[in-house]
C-alpha cells in the first residue's frame, strides 16, 4: 500500500493547504469588515490541522514494527476552522457608522503582514505537495517501463 496511497496523502496535503489559502484570502478580504451576522467586527479565521490516522482496528496482535507501520498517519485532515480569540483592534474614527459612544470603531483582529506570511507558507507547502505527487507519478511511470524490457 505505497505508491498509490502516497497520491492520496499528498492530495490531502493539497486540499488542506488550499483551504488554508482560502481562509487567508477570506481574512484579507475582510480586513475592514466591521459588522457581521453575529454582531461585532469580523474575526480572523484560522484552520486547524491534525494527522489523518488509519483506522486503529486490529493493532494489538501486530508486532511492534508492523504496528508502527499501521499507525503511520495517512496524510492530513482539517479538524476545523476556528476564530482567533484575540480581541478586536480599536480604531478612533468618530465619523464611522459603527463607532461607539467614545468614537472608537472595533476593527477585525487581522494583521495583514501575518496573513501575507501565512499565504506564502501555504503556497510553498502546496508546491511541496505538488512535487511529491509529480515524483510519485514519475516513479509509477518508471515502474511501468519495467514491462517494456
Amino acid at each position, binding site marked *: 500500500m505505497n*505508491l498509490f496511497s502516497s497520491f492520496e496523502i499528498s492530495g490531502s496535503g493539497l486540499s488542506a493547504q488550499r483551504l488554508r489559502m482560502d481562509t487567508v484570502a477570506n481574512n484579507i478580504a475582510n480586513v475592514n469588515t466591521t459588522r457581521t451576522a453575529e454582531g461585532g467586527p469580523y474575526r480572523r479565521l484560522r484552520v486547524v490541522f491534525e494527522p489523518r490516522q488509519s483506522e486503529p482496528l486490529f493493532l494489538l496482535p501486530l508486532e511492534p514494527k508492523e504496528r508502527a507501520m499501521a499507525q503511520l498517519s495517512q496524510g492530513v485532515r482539517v479538524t476545523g476552522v476556528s476564530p482567533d480569540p484575540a480581541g478586536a483592534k480599536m480604531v478612533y474614527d468618530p465619523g464611522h457608522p459603527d463607532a461607539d459612544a467614545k468614537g472608537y470603531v472595533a476593527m477585525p483582529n487581522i494583521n495583514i503582514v501575518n496573513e501575507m506570511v501565512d499565504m506564502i507558507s501555504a503556497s510553498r507547502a502546496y508546491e511541496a505537495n505538488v512535487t511529491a505527487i509529480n515524483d510519485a507519478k514519475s516513479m509509477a511511470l518508471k*515502474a511501468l517501463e*519495467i*514491462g517494456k524490457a
Partner: protein
Amino acid sequence: MAISPVADAYSKSLTAGMLQLNEMSTMAQAAAKVVPGSAETFQQFLASAIGQTVELQKASEKKTEGFLSGKVDNVHEVMIAEEKAEIAFQLTMSVRNKIVEAYQEVMRMQI
C-alpha cells in the same frame, strides 16, 4: 549515498547473470545425455520447466488481481511478476520450438 552499493551490486549481477547462463548450458548438456533406460530425464526436466512457468503465470495473475482490488499498491510488484512470467513463458516456448525443430530434422532424415 545509497546509489553506490547499487552500482556495485549491479556489476556483481552481471557476473551472476553469466554464471546463470553457464548453469543453464550445463543443465542442457545433462538433459541431452541419453542414458539407456532413463529416457525420462528430459521429459521430467521439460515438465518441471512447464510447471514452473505455470506457477509464475499464476503468481503474476494473482498480483494483477491484487492490484485491481487494491491489495497490491505498487506498480513495480505487478510489472516484475508479469515480466518474470513472460520470461519463463518465452524460455519454455523457445525450448519447445527447438525440440520441434530437432524432431522435424530427425523426421526428414533420409534413411
